[in-house]
């Protein structure tokens, strides 16, 4: 039904106050309040057993401890400053660690010595990733900033000169090292120096020599273009072009793989087992697994020495330290 405002005289119309009085009369019935009370009781009980949030406890503590309000922002600022200091200090520490890595500490797989003229990480050679690979610093490169998915257009240039970026093939550390000394690192290519952004992603604490991949955005962020570098060098220097063409990467590859002892599958003899002592490496993965691998390699070499075998009771590797127990 529609009210016709014109149908009633003006004197019969209500005032705004009278209409608002109607609003006061809008009240629920008793059944509503009964349901309301039941629901209210349930929620109240649930609220009683619900643990208070952490900030509530903190606020209560501050109130009870009569901490002046001015101290709260001061304390928060101090915490923030401490956090930023530690965080920035950590980044500098990482860079310092990388810069301090000397060639003498470089680890290369057995049977493969670094080639002469090998590029160091900061000498501005091939590019960030290849410099790391060439000097054998693969054990100091984090999983994320390491090498190579071949979707990158920048890496397509490599496909003609090496197997490093072949059809999405992912190389393990030993394979990369095998390619490195005899292959790419001998190429006197030009390129950008190792960028600071790449440096900052190197983390010795999470280093490992295992399977890795290099994503295109990392290379592009660092400002490296491998394919373009090689193409430009090959176009300007015929000697380089010749040397690239003369390198048989497949042969180097096979040679390197063959030279590596297959430690993971080779059974341990009792002498090796005694030196390896009681640590169970089963199920260990990532960086820890690599340490176990190094330890086995050391045992493999040293157990041939009868005198040493008789005196040593245990061999351990932790980080870059080798420990012997006699």
């Amino acid at each position: 039904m529609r009210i016709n405002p014109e149908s009633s005289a003006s004197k019969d119309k209500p005032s705004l106050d009278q209409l608002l009085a109607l609003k006061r009369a809008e009240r629920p019935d008793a059944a509503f309040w009964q349901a309301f009370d039941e629901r209210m009781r349930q929620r109240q009980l649930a609220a009683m057993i619900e643990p208070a949030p952490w900030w509530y406890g903190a606020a209560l503590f501050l109130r009870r401890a009569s901490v002046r309000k001015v101290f709260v922002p001061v304390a928060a600022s101090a915490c923030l400053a401490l956090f930023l200091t530690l965080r920035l200090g950590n980044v500098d520490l990482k860079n310092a660690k990388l810069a301090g890595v000397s060639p003498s500490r470089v680890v290369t797989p057995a049977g493969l010595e670094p080639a002469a003229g090998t590029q160091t990480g900061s000498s501005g050679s091939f590019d960030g990733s290849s410099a790391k690979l060439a000097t054998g610093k693969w054990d100091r490169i984090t999983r994320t900033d390491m090498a190579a998915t071949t979707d990158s257009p920048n890496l397509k240039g490599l496909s003609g000169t090496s197997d490093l970026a072949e059809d999405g093939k992912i190389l393990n550390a030993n394979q990369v090292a095998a390619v490195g000394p005899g292959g790419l690192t001998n190429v006197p290519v030009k390129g950008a120096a190792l960028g600071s952004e790449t440096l900052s992603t190197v983390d010795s604490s999470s280093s490992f020599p295992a399977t890795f991949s290099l994503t295109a955005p990392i290379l592009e962020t660092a400002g490296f273009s491998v394919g373009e570098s090689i193409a430009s060098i090959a176009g300007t220097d015929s000697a380089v072009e010749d040397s690239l063409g003369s390198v048989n990467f497949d042969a180097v590859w096979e040679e390197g793989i063959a030279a590596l002892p297959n430690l993971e599958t080779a059974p341990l003899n009792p002498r090796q087992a005694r030196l390896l002592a009681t640590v169970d490496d089963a199920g260990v993965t990532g960086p820890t697994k690599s340490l176990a691998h190094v330890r086995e390699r050391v045992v493999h070499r040293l157990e041939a020495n009868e005198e040493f075998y008789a005196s040593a009771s245990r061999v351990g590797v932790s980080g870059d330290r080798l420990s012997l127990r006699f």
Partner: protein
Amino acid sequence: MTASQTLSSAGAIAAERRLEAEADAYLVQRVQAGEVDRFDDLTLKYRERIWSLLYHMTSNREDAADLTQDTFIKAFQSINRFQGQSSFFTWIYRIAVNGAINYLQKNKLRRFFSFEKVQEDGSVTSLLDQLADSSVSSDRAAYLSELQQKLNEAMQKLSIRHRTVVTLFEIDGLSHEEIAEITGTSVGTVRSRLHYAKQLMQADLADYLKT
């Protein structure tokens, strides 16, 4: 009503509020001392007023019920922090108003109205008898429903803050000072908002109001 009558009425209300505040303070002390059941007395005392406030702010009876429960649960959880600097009545109204404002701001686009029936007590019945002429008195329920709908529409057109002031003053009958304390504004701001809100409602309901 003369000025002296108005003053005496205001004084009586103030005295009543003071007694009420003292009774509330005693109950709050008992709850803080561990007598949790005493909080039920406070709930029972204020639930209809809080629900009414929230209902007129949201125009939805179910939302108002949920918000009322939230209000009392928050008050119960924070009762130990209540230090008696204001009355319990003001404190719980502030919790309710803030909860309603948060709810309305979060649900600007998702609004459903559900209205309560008008309980026809003496004052409303006489008002309706006065309002209804012969043409509509035969269907007073429909007439009342339409008036209610128009009024609620006019209320919902107001901003949240103006609606709050109108509800607290015109429907809950609080003083300007109490509203200022609840909303955290000055008395002048309350008066200004009230005046502006009533102007808007007058304009919106012009066809239905006495000129």
